[in-house]
């Protein structure tokens, strides 16, 4: 835990000091989005980087959380926390239901199945206009407890930062534990883990459900923060963005996920100067990163710095 302790302190430091340097609400917005996305990315990394599975449909789970919260609070006047929990529960149940048959698949078939699941969810969201507002989207109320609401950039920043710290600590703990070792062993050699007593199916299912629920919770909070939802939040592109954050930042690296998220969330903002060229630029950056830094930024940097030290 020692090397990750340093990273944790660094993260805490950055999160605490950032408000001192952020000049205006726009930058706060970026920071909040990065923090929330990073939570999803860390969960997804546990599935992809550590356990060695793939999910090309995770935005679907995010969508369930986002739209679940929006619909329950907007149309049924549920308290936001109850809505968030209900949506998370629903996501968990769905993930549990599909996990066993899906995770029996490997490689491209697994990718295809998760892709299909994500797209079905997003199509449902687009089509059920009466509930979701369809392609035009729907507004979402604020988040709070009986009267008190989270209002303003700073408050939301606090919430997002605390959530990120929490998720980071939990993830780091997990990786350092026997469960975390079992997950990595599944990636390394499934048959070797099985003969060592690891119930590989159960573990894969659990980490799948865990990452799905985390995506849902983050989706709910994001919906309340942004105040407006469109179906794109559950779409194929968003799923790909999430996977890219994990892969570019570094698979099997919690801090890599955070860095990858930061870069990929800020990139569209930087590229908005190149009107219309965002897709092209995104594609090129993706290819270059994957070809030259296939392990992702953080592990590749670690390797280079490690060599420098020796």
């Amino acid at each position, binding site marked *: 835990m020692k090397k990750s302790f340093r990273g944790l302190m660094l993260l805490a430091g950055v999160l605490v000091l950032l408000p001192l340097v952020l000049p205006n609400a726009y930058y706060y917005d970026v920071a909040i989005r990065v923090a929330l996305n990073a939570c999803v990315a860390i969960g997804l990394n546990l599935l992809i980087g550590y356990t060695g599975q793939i999910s090309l449909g995770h935005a679907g789970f995010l969508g369930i959380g986002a739209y679940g919260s929006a619909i329950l609070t907007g149309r049924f006047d549920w308290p936001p926390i109850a809505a968030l929990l209900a949506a998370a529960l629903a996501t968990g149940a769905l993930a549990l239901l599909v996990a066993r048959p899906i995770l029996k698949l490997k490689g491209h078939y697994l990718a295809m199945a998760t892709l299909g699941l994500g797209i079905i969810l997003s199509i449902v969201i687009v089509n059920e206009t009466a509930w979701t507002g369809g392609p035009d989207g729907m507004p979402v109320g604020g988040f709070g407890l009986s009267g008190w609401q989270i209002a303003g950039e700073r408050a939301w920043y606090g919430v997002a930062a605390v959530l990120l710290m929490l998720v980071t600590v939990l993830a780091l703990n*997990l990786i350092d*534990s*026997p469960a975390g070792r*079992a997950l990595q062993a599944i*990636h*390394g050699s499934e048959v070797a883990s099985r*003969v060592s007593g690891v119930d*590989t199916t159960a573990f894969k299912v659990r980490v799948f459900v865990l990452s799905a629920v985390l995506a849902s919770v983050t989706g709910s909070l994001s919906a309340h923060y942004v105040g407006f939802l469109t179906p794109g939040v559950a779409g194929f592109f968003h799923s790909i963005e999430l996977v890219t954050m994990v892969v570019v930042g570094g698979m099997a690296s919690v801090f890599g996920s955070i860095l990858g998220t930061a870069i990929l969330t800020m990139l569209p903002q930087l590229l908005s100067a190149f009107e219309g060229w965002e897709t092209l630029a995104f594609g090129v950056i993706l290819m270059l990163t994957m070809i030259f830094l296939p392990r992702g930024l953080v592990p590749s940097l670690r390797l280079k710095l490690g060599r420098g030290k020796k």
Partner: protein
Amino acid sequence: MLTVDKLCKTFGGVKAVQGVSFTIEAGTIYAVIGPNGAGKTTLFNLISGVYTATEGEVRLHDEVITNKRPEELARRGMSRTFQNLQVCMNMSAVENVMVGAHLRLNSGLIAGMLRLPGVGRADKTCHDEAAALMAFVGVGQYVTAHASQMPYGALKRLEIARALAARPKLLLLDEPAAGLNHTETGEIGVLIRKVAAGGVTVVLVEHDMKLVMNLSDRILVLNHGSKLAEGTAAEVRANPAVISAYLGASV
């Protein structure tokens, strides 16, 4: 301790294992030999639950364990190594060995995330035990190394350390000496004796005749998926069918 009764495995048209039966006494070293393609590794995979049997039965201490999954067999004290190394190259050497102790630790996801009391302490103990096991099998110098940095011979021993970390009562070694030179093979033999001396029943598949003859209490000879002969080293060596089918003029 372990009884195999008319075990069969067919892959499409190939009868890999046909009606093989034998019994292994606890605390002995039992070897399975035979030419390439005789069905030795298939037999291992059947016993350890990696393959499902087409017919027949496997009993461990009178409990029928045919077609039980590998995880369940691990819980019953069975452990194994693999002919084609199955080491987790994405983990460090000592972590690989610690995976072997999985069943003895609290491996819940929630417990891990929350770092419940005891999980950390148990992990430290597990780490120390793993390091000790690495020294026991002769790769103590790689305790701080990553699996990807270790040479082939060391990795073979690492697998044995991982299998031992489970504190098994029955250990299956699939070609432990494959790819090793003369000296290394001798060292593996010494290691296997040490393990058996600790009360573990060892079953090994091997090609190296000298190793097999020196170590084994009993030997099973397979040919084309069926039992050709069974007995002590001396009996098998003298068996004319075995000599003509396999040993030839060697040894």
